[in-house]
């Protein structure tokens, strides 16, 4: 296999998930909240997390209990002491996350897309804890840079955030039915072996779940450098009655396609290695008629 989109293999391959070496821990404590961008090497982690495991994840019981004020403080008033999460969330209906980057890795997509769609809230979701922490630190640093007048592009990065989570299990806990306008699957883990295909992030069952989260007219973007995986994702979304494959004409000039090709960490790596990039995008249809 010459080119795969497996994420960077960590230097501490044998270390248990969540294990931290003294050096990394120290680095992270020292740099917490630093205006400088964090260094990736201190946040690497075993390349694969088992999506079937019971990760000790924190997730809301339902989207109503999601406290978005910690993610997007500029858009949501912080919750005050006496409020319950549910009460609080009912006061914050004015804005919703509308873009999700599933398996966002080191966050390249949302960091690049944030300034291009400044009025849209977007969330990266990543299952690996240390990688999520890196993205968190990265976003905090970008926000600080803006506040201290050191921003390069004049964007405040208040519209992007990241959350640790298992997208194959808990998306319905975070998003309401039809909440998302766009959903990205950029260079997902390929899971080459046939018997592993159920671990792939696109499957007939999961496609129905994504259709539930994405509003009719919304778009699912996929990109990979692994042709087999591309065929796989394309086929299962094409076969799904709630998705239509989009034509190149429909996608022409779509800023999202350019961004996922050029600005994701994996996309850049594939470019450096002169690899292929396969793109397939799908529009969510209306639910079919269902009458008594």
């Amino acid at each position, binding site marked *: 296999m010459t080119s795969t989109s497996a994420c960077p293999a960590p230097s501490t391959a044998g270390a248990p*998930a969540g294990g931290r070496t003294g050096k990394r821990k120290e680095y992270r404590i020292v740099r917490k909240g630093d205006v400088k961008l964090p260094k990736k090497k201190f946040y690497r982690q075993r390349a694969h997390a088992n999506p*079937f495991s019971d990760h000790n994840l924190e997730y809301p*019981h339902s989207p109503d209990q999601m406290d978005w004020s910690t993610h997007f403080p500029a858009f949501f008033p912080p919750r005050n002491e006496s409020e319950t999460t549910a009460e609080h969330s009912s006061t914050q209906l004015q804005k919703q996350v509308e873009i999700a980057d599933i398996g966002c890795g080191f966050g390249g997509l949302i960091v690049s897309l944030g300034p291009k769609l400044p009025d849209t809230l977007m969330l990266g979701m990543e299952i690996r804890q240390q990688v999520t922490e890196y993205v968190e630190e990265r976003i905090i640093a970008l926000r600080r840079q803006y506040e201290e007048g050191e921003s390069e592009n004049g964007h405040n990065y208040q519209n992007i955030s990241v959350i640790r989570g298992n997208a194959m299990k808990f998306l319905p806990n975070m998003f309401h039915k039809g909440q998302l306008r766009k959903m990205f699957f950029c260079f997902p883990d390929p899971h080459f072996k046939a018997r592993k295909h159920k671990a792939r992030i696109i499957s007939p069952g999961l496609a129905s779940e994504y259709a539930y989260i994405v509003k009719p007219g919304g778009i699912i973007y996929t990109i990979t450098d692994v042709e087999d995986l591309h065929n796989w994702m394309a086929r299962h979304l094409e076969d799904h009655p709630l998705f239509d494959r989009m034509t190149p004409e429909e996608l022409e000039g779509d800023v999202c396609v350019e961004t996922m090709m050029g600005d994701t960490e994996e996309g850049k790596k594939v470019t450096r290695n002169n690899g292929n990039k396969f793109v397939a995008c799908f529009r969510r249809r209306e639910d079919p008629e269902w009458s008594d």
Partner: protein
Amino acid sequence: MIHPIQRIHAHDSSDRIYTATSNTLHVFRASTGELLSTWTAPLVPNPNVPNSQPVAASTPAPEPTSTDQAQSPAPPGSPAPPAAGSKKRKLADQQGENKKLRSSKWTNTQGGCNNAIAKIQTTEDGRWLVVATMEDKAIRVFKVSVGEEEGGLLECLSTRALPKRVGDFAILNTDTILAGDKHGDVFALPLQERSSSIPKPAPTPHALIPADVREAAAAEKRKRTEIDYALPFTHRFVLGHVSMLLRILPIAIGKKTWIVTGDRDEHIRVTRWPQSFVIESFLLGHEGFVSSLLCPSWRTEKDWLVSAGGDDYIIVWKWREGKIGQKLPLKEAVDAAYPALTAPETEDAPETGDEGKQNDKIVVNGLWEVPGGIMVGIEHAPILLFFTTTPENPDTLTLTSTINLPGNILDVAVFGSEPRMLVSVDAAESKELVTAWKFDSGAKEWVSVEDDISKKVNGEVTKVEVPDDMHDIVKSNVLYTVATLRKTFREGEDTRNRDPRGKEAEEEQQQEGEDAMKE
């Protein structure tokens, strides 16, 4: 320990009670208690016991064999089956061998290979019986002879082994089985399919002429995107959870049908049928797994869904609106009826009086519908909680009474118009397998009765002695399977490095990780 009855099922119009003791099914006539038929699921070789193979080889599981047929205990006046003599001997042999195998297994600490019956369900008309067994992961369909042709015989029509253990199944419209496996996939299988394995047509190799090459490449590409569910029989993928699937409940209202599914990750999902690619809603409110779902038919609009499992409460949903109607706490009732369950383990262990925190000893092992109410079973406790609506409050459930049982609750079958209830219990001392209850409509209470059916069941069910060192295995694998679904984390632990689907899946996943790093 005598093996208790882990599953009990009633079908009214055909007047039947079905019981499962380990891997043996008994069929009784509900009104008289007459034992009509028995059937024993073939044992499965224990992979951990190398010398358990020879015996099992003669009854290769899960393929049905001629001995995989129900046996009638002297059906009066029924025509003798052809070659009855040889069949009988074979049966006797098998039983002898079963015993041998069982003992070799049950003396092995890995145990649990007795292929216990996990679920019994009949079609609405009572003519078909569907049974799921644990170790061979099979779903079997039996034709039930009732009425005229009744000979007490059950005829096993098909045995379909799923690649993964059956988490739950349901029967839709008397012609479709919805089977959910432990990995979260739900498949629709035709109820009537005689052959147990329709082999997939092997692609006939033929010499390629150049014009075919492109087509062949396209076919190859297509094949590589195909998911191989390894189901060698007619099936249709219906839906998938990335979680252990614990309960499937179809609800039909007018011309519409929904499939409600519950999983180990606290989700209840409502899916359209047959357009199962459309998820109507998620009902989110549980903090623990969802292993019991019930849509009481006495709500004529079928607007309620009751759910329970790993929480110390049950939820009554107005499911069409996606709203919680009631959240009914159980702790007080459990404490009042059976304080031993929630008592702290040691004297000086502090009362975990964390307000708002759940009591982790309380787990619901089942919900059953009775006219105007529901029964809630608490695992590891000898009680049933009886909730009803009242004329004053027709739209809320309240705890009406608690039924004390002679042993821990295992399963409940409700039948008859009176109505009656047959409750199977784990009562080592009293040696009672089931107790019978009748609803006294005057006193509005369930009263214990000793009727023909309970007497016969207690008397006629084949007693299986479980060796001492096997008690724990039978308990955790067959009798008390619900509480083990809990997720447990140690303080500060990031990932519970155990794949809940089992060791095999865990190792696969491990391997995958390592492969990916090498690539």
